[in-house]
């Protein structure tokens, strides 16, 4: 197994080339070549296919691609390369599970296969920006109080004492510590003090602030997970590599964060499906990740719920869950905001595309593309849990039909989605309870989708 110093050695000794040449002369041509060699073809009519041989073929295409292309280091302008034997060895040795959390809230995040009726790991995705500490606390408490939730993300605190919390500034560092503190208090208030936090450190956009705020006295625990990203597409820098080295050396868990962009350097759905699968191999090979947060995303609509991206998610999820023992948390970004029917349709379609495809875990959906400040509520968390359970009782073939029906309900509005409501606009900020109008909308959509054939409890 290669460790981070081995990766570093390749980053300073691998073939040198400028970044544009890596994109244009290596990444794009090899991706096109692999798509053609393995006959990867987007199937518009079947967003959730059920072909195991095609899944295994996609996996082999991803191995071939990884072997040919490698990973680019922006700090040294060199390519980190791997042999096929090294790739196969990492795949053989992968444990396929990780242990997270403390005490009664601890759990094991393991694998699932396509069409397996086992519940996935329910990860409450609340890792967006919040403007006020009070709203952030109430929202987190509401999500952590949902019994089925296995783990949680903390939101990013947008500012501290009115100073924006970005750019590796002292404000970013102070806001990072404050964000951890608020989050830990909120999960204690929900009676879930040991609930694993999977997106540390959300407020720290830079590796420098993330490492600084990770000192144990600020509240993070070794049983939580730190997100270590990548740079699109298939690139790293020393900041990311140092953060990975730090998290591994401290004994905590590395969560790999990857988001291939459909329509960007990956090209269309065929190429993005190969890149999506290869990113999961990269998570084991380069990051030595314990789990992975993965979201292939549309370049124009910045969401994961368009027809082509739904297909990419389904096929790469099937390829991975059959062949790569990495516990991947599949992460939906929806176009519509909270308190809208469209958000509930998008969530349903997404979960039906990945859970029957073998997703080990999923993150509850990010409304409004994850960019609306205060744009998440516990009602979305509840909907994801209900839909997640229903999706685990659905086979791929049935899911394919249902996803097509759901796409009919929202596809035409993907370029102009309703922004919906912020937390404080659809919840009582004192009690944390949803407004009656949101409850009614929720029940109405649930009834409508039950009539469509979704097997709710």
């Amino acid at each position, binding site marked *: 197994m290669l460790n981070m110093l081995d990766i570093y050695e390749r980053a300073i000794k691998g073939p040198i080339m400028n970044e544009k040449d890596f994109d244009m002369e290596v990444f*794009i041509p090899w991706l096109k070549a692999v798509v053609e060699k393995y006959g990867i073809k987007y199937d518009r009519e079947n967003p959730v296919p059920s072909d195991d041989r095609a899944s295994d073929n996609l996996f082999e295409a991803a191995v071939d691609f990884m072997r040919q292309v490698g990973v680019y280091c922006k700090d040294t302008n060199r390519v980190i390369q791997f042999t096929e034997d090294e790739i196969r060895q990492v795949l053989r040795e992968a444990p396929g599970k990780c242990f997270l959390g403390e005490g009664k809230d601890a759990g094991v995040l393991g694998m699932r296969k396509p069409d397996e009726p086992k519940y996935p790991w329910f990860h409450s995705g609340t890792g967006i920006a919040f403007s006020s500490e009070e709203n952030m606390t109430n929202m987190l408490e509401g999500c952590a109080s949902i019994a089925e939730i296995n783990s949680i993300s903390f939101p990013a605190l947008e500012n501290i004492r009115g100073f924006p919390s970005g*750019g590796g500034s002292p404000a970013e560092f102070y806001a990072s510590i404050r964000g951890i503190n608020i989050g830990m208090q909120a999960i204690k208030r929900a009676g879930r003090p040991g609930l694993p936090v999977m997106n540390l450190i959300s*407020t720290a*956009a830079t590796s420098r602030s993330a490492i600084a705020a990770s000192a144990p006295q600020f509240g993070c625990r070794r049983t939580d997970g730190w997100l270590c990203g990548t740079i699109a597409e298939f690139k790293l820098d020393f900041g990311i590599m140092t953060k990975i080295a730090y998290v591994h050396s401290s004994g905590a868990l590395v969560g790999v964060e990857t988001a291939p962009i459909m329509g960007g350097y990956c090209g269309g759905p065929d190429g993005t499906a190969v890149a999506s699968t290869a990113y999961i191999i990269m998570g084991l090979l380069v990051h030595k990740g314990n789990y992975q947060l993965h979201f292939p995303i549309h370049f124009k609509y910045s969401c994961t719920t368009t027809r082509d991206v739904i297909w990419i998610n389904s096929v790469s999820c099937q390829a991975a869950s059959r062949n790569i023992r990495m516990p991947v948390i599949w992460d939906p970004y929806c176009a519509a905001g909270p308190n809208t029917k469209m958000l509930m349709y998008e969530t349903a379609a997404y979960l039906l595309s990945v859970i029957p495809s073998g997703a080990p875990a999923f993150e509850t959906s990010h409304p409004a593309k994850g960019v609306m400040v205060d744009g998440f509520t516990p009602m979305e968390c509840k909907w994801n849990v209900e839909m997640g359970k229903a999706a685990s009782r659905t086979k791929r073939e049935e899911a394919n039909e249902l996803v097509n029906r759901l796409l009919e309900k929202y596809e035409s509005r993907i370029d102009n989605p309703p922004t919906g409501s912020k937390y404080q606009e659809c919840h009582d900020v004192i009690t944390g309870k949803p407004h009656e109008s949101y409850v009614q909308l929720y029940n109405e959509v649930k009834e409508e989708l039950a009539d469509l054939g979704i097997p709710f409890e």
Partner: protein
Amino acid sequence: MEVVGAQFESGDSFLPEILMASGTFSAAMEIIKPAIEAKNQQVRKEGTVLLATVKGDLHNIGKNIVGAGMETNGFEVVDIGVNQPTLNIIEAADKNKADIIALSSLMTSTIPNQKELIEVLKEMGIRDKYFVLVGGGPVSQKWADEIGANGYGETAIDAVNISRNLMSGHK
């Protein structure tokens, strides 16, 4: 380029095709431009755009799409890359005699740096020297209005059209 641009807008072509077409276009212009100038004529230039992703933000794909769109629609594009401090951007705009500064930002934590650039231009007394365009995932028309940007582009084609409108008013 118009054909590839239209295919890109309709979702039938993607960034690789745009970049390859753009590279071919630039290579062709290197041959054609001297021939045009030899006849005492000039290639029409819409304006010069200084393109950057703001400080703290490493995302470059949206910026590159805008750059390719601008370049193939007659703008001269100076792309100084990602994670660019405010003063670097302003100095590069001055050095390259830019008409437009186009700023990309994909993170809620980095969009304040778009605002910062406009404030620094004001502090330096040169706000009116440049049109400032903003774009990126968390950016909206509302944000652009709030910070006093001259325009917001949701897509590359928006950025081209807004830039053309601004430059025609400018001239």
